[in-house]
């Protein structure tokens, strides 16, 4: 099956978004495929819809035209989870405890104010969607598989990347590295570029802010470096105030990654709160409400100091 060139791959994966025309996730103009489900629960996560493996109902209140004009969803919901809002009349409330994500409200919503995050797609479906942009592949672009954590759907991602390579589509992944090495290894075989998050060297702190320890992550990246020395790795660190924004934290990461022989770039990504509205769409609470994004100058200073160390070790 794996090497049957003519066959259509019907393996399914749960995808919550395919972002077209992405210019910041690898070379050229790319399509980013976001896989749903993540074993981490980073407090700052700007894509909360990526975390649960199951499909989820999102509600964008300002798109809702209200029950006077519409109200179709209230009638459609078999669980009676949707009601006339008591706070924001004439709009609606969704009782998340009753909702079983059946998607009936999504089908009837004329304004697309209610959406379903997480669709089952076959490898072929995804290829069709991204190959639609095939003009970009001729000009340096490709596909980047992101998440969520793609290792949760490693089988599907493996087949997808393999198929892309076969069709001459450039491949990249964005991973937290938290998963089974055998799966990661299989996936890396079909990757031209790896974005790998290293968030914090202190495992306890890592667990407190992401829900998991970091040993597996650090172990995996060393294995990637030794087994795929030809595949470029870009290490990224989200800089989160009160978590890892001290030079001490960053320096520890930098010193660790100097041993990666395939490291091509180290990128600090400043914390931002743009994901906050999505928490509301999902009826969840955003827990970093009071955290302010770090200053631009502070981040660029950190980045310069990091680069200085890396340069000394001549990582490129």
């Amino acid at each position, binding site marked *: 099956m794996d090497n049957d060139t003519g066959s259509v791959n019907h393996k399914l994966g749960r995808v919550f978004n395919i972002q077209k*025309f992405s*210019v910041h996730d690898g070379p050229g*103009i790319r399509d980013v495929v976001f896989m749903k489900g993540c074993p981490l629960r980073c407090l700052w996560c700007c894509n909360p819809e990526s975390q649960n493996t199951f499909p989820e109902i999102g509600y964008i209140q300002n798109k809702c*035209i209200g029950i006077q004009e519409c109200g179709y969803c209230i009638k459609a919901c078999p669980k009676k989870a949707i009601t006339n809002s008591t706070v924001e009349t004439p709009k609606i409330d969704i009782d998340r405890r009753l909702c079983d994500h059946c998607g009936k409200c999504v089908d009837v919503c004329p304004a*697309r104010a209610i959406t379903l995050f997480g669709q089952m797609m076959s490898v072929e479906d995804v290829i069709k969607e991204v190959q*639609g*942009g095939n003009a970009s592949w*001729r000009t340096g672009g490709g596909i980047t598989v992101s998440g969520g954590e793609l290792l949760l759907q490693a089988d599907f991602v493996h087949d997808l990347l393999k198929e892309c390579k076969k069709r001459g589509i450039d491949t990249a992944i964005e991973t937290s590295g938290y998963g089974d090495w055998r799966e990661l290894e299989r996936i890396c075989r079909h990757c031209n570029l790896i974005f790998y998050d290293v968030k914090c060297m202190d495992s306890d702190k890592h667990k407190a802010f992401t829900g998991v320890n970091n040993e597996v992550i650090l172990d995996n990246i060393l294995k990637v470096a030794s087994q795929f020395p030809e595949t470029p790795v870009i290490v990224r660190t989200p800089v989160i105030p009160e978590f890892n924004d001290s030079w001490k934290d960053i320096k520890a990461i930098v010193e660790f990654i100097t041993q990666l022989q395939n490291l091509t770039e180290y990128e600090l990504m400043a914390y931002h709160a743009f994901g906050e509205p999505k928490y509301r769409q999902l009826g969840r609470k955003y827990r970093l409400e009071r955290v302010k994004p770090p200053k631009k100058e502070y981040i660029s200073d950190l980045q310069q100091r990091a680069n200085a160390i890396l340069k000394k070790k001549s990582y490129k």
Partner: protein
Amino acid sequence: MEAAAKVLTPQEERIIKGLDKEELTTEEAKNKRQRVNKLLARFRKVPRVDIQRALLFTESFQETESLPVVLRWAKAMENVLNKIEVVINDDELIVGTCGGTGRHSILYPELRGCWLEEGLQRLKEQGAYLVSDEDIKTVKEKIVPYWRGKTAHETYISLLPEETRYLIYGDDNYGASGLMQDNANINATLNWAVDYQKVLEKGFLGIKKDAEEKLNSLDVVDPQNHIQKTPFLKAVIIVCDAMIAFAKRYAELAREMARNEKDKIRKKELERIAEVCEWVPANPARTFHEAVQSQWFTQLGCRLEQPTTGVISNGRIDQYLYPYYKKDLEEGRINEDSALELLECLWLKIADFVPLNATNAKSFWEGYAHFEQTVIGGQTRDGQDATNELSYLILKSKKEFPLHYPDLSVRIHSQTPEPFLREVCELIREGTGFPKLLNDEEIIPHLLAQGATLEDARDYTGCACTEIRMINTSTYMVVGGNINLPAALEMALNDGVLKLKGNKQRLGVTTGDARNFATFDELMNAFRLQVEYLVRHFYIRQTALEMTNAMKLAAPLMSSLHDVCMNELTDIHQPLKGGVSADTGNINLNGFGTAVESLAAIKKLVYDDKKITMNELLEALEANFEGKEALRQMLLNAPKYGNNAPYADQIAREVDAMLLTTARKFKTPNGHQYIKFVPVTSHVGLGVVMGATPNGRKAGEPLSEGISPTQGVDMKGPLSTLLSIDRAKSRKYANSLARLLNIKLSPQVVAGEKGLQDLMSMVRTFCDLKLWHLQFNILNSDILRDAQKNPEKYRNLIVRVAGYSAYFVDLSPQLQNEIINRTEHQHM
């Protein structure tokens, strides 16, 4: 997934920093080209209407009633060129004006003269043009009375069957009904460029000599010669002499001014101007300065002779000026800066001339639109890449020269050199909308299919908005008009009834009650019948206009520069045997995206999913969606063209095939008409008078633009848009051209080295996909909103409207909103 910080384009930065007076944009340029900066500081006044041309033209016509039209035109040109005021302004190096000092418009009473009676007063009141009361009086007393009953427009109207006339004009023969919008007699001819190279190489003495030789060898016993060729050649000789004499008046003035000039440097300059004007355009140009001056005199003559759509094109300027540039550079006469100075003096001359649209359909034309397309790049006649140092220099000038004239376009082809493309994309990134891109890989095969030789096809030039010409081969001159496609769809849904400006009328054919259409195909068929009905009337008007032009117009100067005319000894407005006549698009379709998305929404919701009934849809449209918001949302969220998704794109393709097929069903004396998609700004005007449409668009909102999807519905990034546009191209026949496509990007998308590379990739993709035309707007919509609120702060914010760039604050609020709403392809 990082949200990028807001990045401003260089243009936005200049404005925000308060640098809003006209000046060169870099310190280096300002220092090196102080003259241009001084000239710029005096620019940007509201144009003044200058009546000299109209007066002198009329004066001559009153005396030549007995002569053939071509001779009358030549004599009128002679009168104008001999008597019109000659002016040399401080600091000018390139001289010559069609109507005095400063920004001006001139009048062509022979076309729509009767409109001037009321129109000039209205223009004055609107404040868009300055006109003195005395001039209005002169026009009313000395110009209009002569032309009443004699204008081209009156002849044209009289040749139209009443049914056709009513469809186009309704109750105002100088306005537009909204179903169709007619460009007849606003300009005399289509977009046009002349063979400047001929003047540079031969001079008008050379052209005159050719004409004299031909005249001497004519056998006058042959009646054909006698009635047609002789007057034509005599007319050519008259205009050649008149052009030479006109330049000599400038030489004389320059000499006189030099005599009185105290400043030594200026004195020298004036003496040089005198020498140049004494020599060209009579003789072949010897230097770059002479070549530029000769070019300007030539196009100035064309402007005085006749208005062409978008004003006359500069043609392939980096090609025909290059030998003079190279020679002067080698012989030390010029350097890059002095060459730029001369070119920018030419740009200023071009910017000073504003075409005036003698029409009551004001909302169809906005922002002092003129497109003197200045074309660089592309291929040589033998198929090599044509880029040279002058191409780069002109790109540089566009970066540093702040005015949006002239209109710059770059011909892209598969071998466009990477460094050149890089410079082009750097310029695009500046955010002024320049340059627009024309695609050789689409246009050259198109011209071949029409019977052009490979050499001529490779040598095409851009003209006007997104149109093209082969300067010695193309001969078709008659302007077209617009058809409102969404209006045709409304008629298909209402048994031929259309609501325009709130009034319902049966303007179309009866195609039955849409509630009884059992299938989508029945609706498509009704739509086809309505379109066919409009196209039929379009052909009727086109024939009437072709007849009118042949009867009423002549253009001896433009004809003298055209090989076909000089071979057949016939004016360009007469039927010609040679050349390629069916070479340009005329049936200009508006609202393609609106119509396609409307059809897709109906197919999906009424026929496939049966979520709504036809009756519900029609009632909601009738009510302009009042109380029907849920239904409107369904329409808005139905599959949309432009997202590289087959459902709507397939309908786009079917509609395109239908349009091309329909256009082939009829003929004018010149043959089939071509389909094009160039709205200029008429999609806004046609939208204003239209009711709600089934794509969820409310009454009065603009229609979609060009071949682009409806504003704001293409959400999958510009590459998807490009692919949809490609899929919409049915390629049914080779009778479709000028497919205008506008893509708006946020500055952050193209920031940095990677952004530049990505932009270059997009252009290469556009080239690979063989799309006709592409232009970019790179702006923040926040900036535009702020500009709406504080127009004084953004006086010189340039945006690309549709095939041309305009000052944002000059546009109407509707058009401003339309630009803001165009999808911002912003990555978050």
